[in-house]
């Protein structure tokens, strides 16, 4: 077995690997971090994420669930990339989050969730001149990358008292990236198009712990930490690269002193740089901060149903450099929630406008995106 590994390593080293970026600001490296936020939390700029049982961030949050609950989320993104005076419009369809939790004893819940951690879906096509056999030829290269790394979490939450909730989670990061690469030439049949397909599979692990503190009826605090362990990228049976799942530390506060209203804020630190080495030397991940502020308030009654309105904003650094520059994202959004079927089903929707821009002005590119999020929560 050891010999096979050595041979595989030598073969890989001998191959002139050609490496790719994905052509956008947000999907560099292994892709865009969705944030693992539910529609409700996303509408509040992520500020409610630490308190939200549907967002797989703080395992303590599921301790408040007294009923079994199931949650599904669909999250399309309409993205507009501008660079070099040109514009590309993209539509990305994501089913970004699904979760299930059931209570146990009288104070605890156990839950399982699957969320998109890094989404690498992108496609680029451009033409360039290439010298082949002393002849200048126009080559059109198309790269289509599909797939994501997903975070599958099993969590236990427990309410030790009315003021303290604890939770622990075990994470498995799995997924697949499939890359379709073609090179085509206008001069047929002299030149033959190239088509290559490569598939990467990922397996990584992490553990998380969280606590929710409610010192008073109007104030809540949340603290969460995720410790990342190793992650492998494999092509077939061969391990192509290894790195670590990023550690994450976050804190949040919620204030409910205004009747019918909750104001929340969160801050977190993601050590994305631990992913360096999983990709090529060109895929550079950097640690980054994230902060969000949001408000959730009772809205008008529509069709005899009580609605909840949400507003929020979020600012964060994206994990991977684009053109050598860090990329920041500012999101402003809002949303609506309402209950149906005798309050056993809840439908949340949010709309978020995200602006992404490189910190270095030398990178002439910017991105605007509208992220629609639809969440359906059911309590059977």
């Amino acid at each position: 077995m050891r010999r096979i590994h050595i041979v595989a390593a030598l073969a890989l080293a001998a191959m002139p690997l050609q490496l790719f970026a994905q052509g956008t600001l947000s999907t560099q490296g292994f892709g865009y971090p969705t944030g693992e936020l539910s529609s409700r939390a996303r509408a509040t700029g992520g500020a409610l994420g630490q308190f939200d049982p549907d967002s797989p961030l703080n395992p303590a949050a599921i301790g408040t669930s007294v009923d079994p609950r199931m949650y599904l989320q669909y999250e399309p993104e309409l993205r507009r990339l501008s660079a070099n005076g040109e514009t590309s419009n993209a539509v990305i369809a994501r089913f970004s989050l699904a979760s299930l939790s059931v209570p146990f004893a009288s104070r605890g819940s156990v839950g399982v969730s699957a969320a998109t951690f890094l989404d690498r879906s992108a496609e680029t096509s451009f033409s360039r001149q290439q010298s082949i056999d002393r002849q200048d030829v126009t080559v059109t290269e198309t790269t289509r990358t599909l797939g994501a790394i997903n975070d599958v979490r099993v969590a236990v939450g427990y309410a030790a008292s009315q003021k303290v909730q604890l939770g622990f989670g075990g994470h498995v990061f799995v997924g697949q990236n499939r890359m379709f690469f073609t090179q085509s030439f206008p001069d047929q049949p002299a030149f033959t198009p190239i088509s290559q397909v490569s598939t990467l599979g990922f397996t990584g692990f992490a553990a998380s712990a969280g606590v929710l503190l409610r010192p008073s009826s109007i104030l809540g605090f949340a603290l969460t930490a995720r410790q990342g362990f190793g992650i492998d990228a494999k092509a077939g049976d061969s391990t192509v690269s290894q790195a670590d799942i990023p550690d994450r530390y976050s804190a949040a506060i919620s204030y409910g002193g205004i009747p019918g209203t909750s104001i929340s804020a969160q801050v977190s630190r993601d050590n994305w740089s631990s992913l360096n080495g999983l990709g090529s030397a060109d895929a550079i991940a950097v640690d980054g901060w994230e902060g969000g502020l949001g408000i959730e308030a009772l809205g008008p009654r529509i069709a005899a149903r009580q609605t909840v309105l949400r507003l929020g904003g979020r600012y964060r650094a994206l994990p991977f450099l684009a053109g050598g520059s860090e990329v920041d994202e500012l999101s402003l959004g809002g949303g609506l929630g309402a209950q149906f079927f005798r309050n056993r089903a809840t439908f949340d929707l949010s709309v978020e406008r995200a602006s992404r821009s490189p910190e270095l002005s030398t990178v002439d590119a910017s991105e605007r995106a509208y992220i629609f999020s639809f969440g359906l929560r059911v309590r059977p």
Partner: protein
Amino acid sequence: MQLISGRLKLAGLVILTAALTACTEKLDSSAGCPILCPGRGGEIETVTIDAVTLDSTVSALTGQGTEASLLVATRGDSLDARAILRFDSIPGRYRRPGADTISIPVTTADSVILRMRVDTVGGKIPSSITLDIYDVDSNAPDSAINEIAALFTPGRLITSATFAKAALKDTILVTLPSAAILSRLDRRLRIGIRARGPQSVQLRILSQEGAGIPTVLSYRVSADTTVARVSLTPESRTPVDQPALALSLADYTLLVRGTATGPATGLNIGGLPARRVYMRFDIPSFLIDSVDVVRASLLLTQISNPGIDQTDTVRIAPFVSLATTAVVDVAKAAQITALASRDTLRVTPGSSGERRLEIASILSLWRATNVAETPRAIVLISAQEGNSPLEARFHSAEAAPELRPRLRISYSTRKSSGLP
């Protein structure tokens, strides 16, 4: 409150529409290139190798009568080709239309017409041509070229028909004397066609293999116009025990004198009788198995052919040989082929110099085959094989290094790992 409700419904409608629109992914982000897409397709390397291990000129072995058209050419000492049409059953009786089942012996044959379709493309047509129609019926086997050619005598001449150049458009009609039919009732009529003109003549008559029903012999057996004309298409009833061969021999080209071919040490493609070239390759395995070939060119050095039609164009197509190692005779291996490249080499026989034929698609096929079972070989065939005297000649692997066939391969060094 009603105003708010209305706005919320409108917003809901907009969001729902956006969500439904977003169900279809469109991922194009090409505007980000090349700034956000560095280092993409890798380099293209080019190597030129002496990969030909065996090359040989072999006979086309296309089988008598299988040609798509019948070459009729009279070109002095260079070429003499004639056409043979067989009507192996001339009916001796006919029936009137209606319920009358009694057959009547044929006693008259009026308006005997031989209709043929001609193709003058690539031909040599003087101001007028004359087609001499001979009775060439004999018991000589069809492969006995000289014996059949000897039947084209004045005594066997049935008729002659002269056509102006402008009249040779698609279909021609030749009127035969009644005696040509009446003398062959209940027997067979075998017609030989020879062309002549003020200068060299060369044209083609479409054969049964090349068109639907190109040739029809028809005549009237009764003055009664309700009795339909008898229409006969070429038919051979011999050899009796080989129906497929008999089908082919319904019409065929009788090549009395073929074109001169090039030196045995060269590669000769085309000509009459037709020749093709078999080439076997030994290519480094990494070029087949480990890289993506962008371009593969077979470099050939042409030798000028001083024969006929030096400035006409001959098209040469590369076929892949499908013969396995069980076929040891290259002449037979050269017959087991499949078209695998869209490229065609166009040359004039009289020219010379380096020529390039693209065969990358054939290399792609070889990736899927086991070289131990199926040798990597191609067969170069004239697109007008068997129908044209044009012959292109090339240096073989026995020539000087700069003249022998070589393979120039451009390949991509890119190997995708899928890593960003």
